[in-house]
């Protein structure tokens, strides 16, 4: 039965345990890359073909001169207006009956146009399979009335899963609660960006601090179609006119 599902990731509840990363890899049989030794407890680095959930560890200065961690379990946003889906030339990227964005592995030919388009650096290229890969929203689990593995494993309920409308209500309520407690910088991300994301985030800093483009910069690739083609057209006209002028003159000089 068709449903519109969503995630709500409350970063104020994330403890950086990475249970979501592990559960995702386990369920989706992702072998992962060799661990990286980065500046923090992060040893996967980014979302890509092997990391469909990635816990960001963000070091921030506090007003009293100290340092605080912010953790956020990042994931594909399953945008309502998806940049990857927009550019995909093979129609390998489809919208499922759950309103999620899914890459069909038997259709994708590994052109990587979707990687160039995704503003959240979600999609990665699997060198072994030759395919673009990303979070499937645990499509198989959804079809069997199970919740995604990451949400199931999250011990603090930082990752919540449900109907998108319900997630929006929960997110708005939590935002109100935090603001009432004096967390003035709390804000929701994903209500308006790309027509509304299917992965909402409650943040305590501006979106760009979490590597999320703000509303002004959350734009679709197709915005450049008309002006780029127009420039090409004008160039073509000028080029042809230039050639005509050059060829019509006598050969001398």
């Amino acid at each position, binding site marked *: 039965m068709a449903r519109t599902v969503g995630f709500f990731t409350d970063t104020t509840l994330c403890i950086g345990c990475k249970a979501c990363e592990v559960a995702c890899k386990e369920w989706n049989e992702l072998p992962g890359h060799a661990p990286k030794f980065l500046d923090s407890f992060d040893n996967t680095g980014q979302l890509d073909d092997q990391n469909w959930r990635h816990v960001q560890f963000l070091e921030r200065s506090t007003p009293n001169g100290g340092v605080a961690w912010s953790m956020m379990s990042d994931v594909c946003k399953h945008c309502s207006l998806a940049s990857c889906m927009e550019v995909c030339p093979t129609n390998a990227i489809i919208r499922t009956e759950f309103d999620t964005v899914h890459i069909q592995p038997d259709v994708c030919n590994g052109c990587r146009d979707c990687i160039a388009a995704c503003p959240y650096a979600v999609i990665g290229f699997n060198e072994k399979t030759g395919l673009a890969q990303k979070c499937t929203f645990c499509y198989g689990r959804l079809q069997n009335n199970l919740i995604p593995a990451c949400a199931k494993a999250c011990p603090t309920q930082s990752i919540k899963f449900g109907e998108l409308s319900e997630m929006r209500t929960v997110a708005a309520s939590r935002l109100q609660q935090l603001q009432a407690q004096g967390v003035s910088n709390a804000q929701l991300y994903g209500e308006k960006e790309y027509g509304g994301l299917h992965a909402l985030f409650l943040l305590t800093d501006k979106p760009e601090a979490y590597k999320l483009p703000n509303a002004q910069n959350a*734009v679709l690739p197709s915005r450049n179609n008309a002006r780029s083609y127009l420039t090409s057209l004008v160039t073509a006209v000028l080029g042809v006119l230039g050639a005509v002028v050059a060829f019509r003159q006598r*050969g001398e000089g």
Partner: protein
Amino acid sequence: MPQHFVAPPLWEWYIVWYFFLGGLAGGAYLLGTLLRLIGDPRDEGVARLAFLIAFPAVIICPILLTLDLGHPVRFWHMLINSRTWGLNFKYWSPMSVGAWALLIFTVFVTVSFIEALARDGWTRHPAARSVAGTLAGAFGRLFMVVGSLFGLFVAGYTGVLLSVSNQPVWSDTWALGGLFLASGLSVAAATLAILARSRADAASTERKLSRADRIFIVLELLLLAAFFVTLGTLAGRLFAPRWIVLWVLVALGTFAPLLMHRAPGAGRAGAPVLAAGLVLLGGLALRIVLVFGAQM
């Protein structure tokens, strides 16, 4: 400054060479057509050369694109939906439109190549002579004009393809489509100017091509200026030390041919070839720095 958090698509050498050869093929086909339509009879030899050179250039393009795919055997998925068996065509996706344009342009180039072979006497096959006969009149002129439109598209859409993304640099300018097209025209004119030397009685055509090339170079420089203006401070990432040599080649490939034309002794043997060679090097360097520079 625009915010970018995207991952690079890892488009590398296959794509660079595709951009270069696509520009060369599209530009050569257009120039061959114009030499035939508005040139004098002495230009016919070089017009044929244009169609002869467009063919190998365009034939390599789909091979490069196929090799670049993660799943090369699924190259046909660009055109046909493997689930529904319907045609895949998305006018808002330059890669989708480009796949079709390249296919159609290749047909035009192949036919014109066969015609040029027959007219040049390389083949006496009845089918080739029949093609040459069919294209001899008004239909042939119309055929070349339509083919040239596809050639112009193939030479320019590659820049649009880069811009229709969310990549830094590529998506922050509207100038890339025009820039690649102007550069492709310039590269084609330079290539034909060099090859024209192999034809007897082509000295005047060579001069016409050099003159056209200087116009294309001015166009290219204007678009390069527009490119940098639209990027603003973001252009800085294209000037990392590793790219400086390539920018020097781009400068040599644009300013040097313009200046050499005005310099004393410009007509001396070798100077036009050197100028054309610099255009080719500059055209390639431009694509290398724009493709790799934005992804690092």
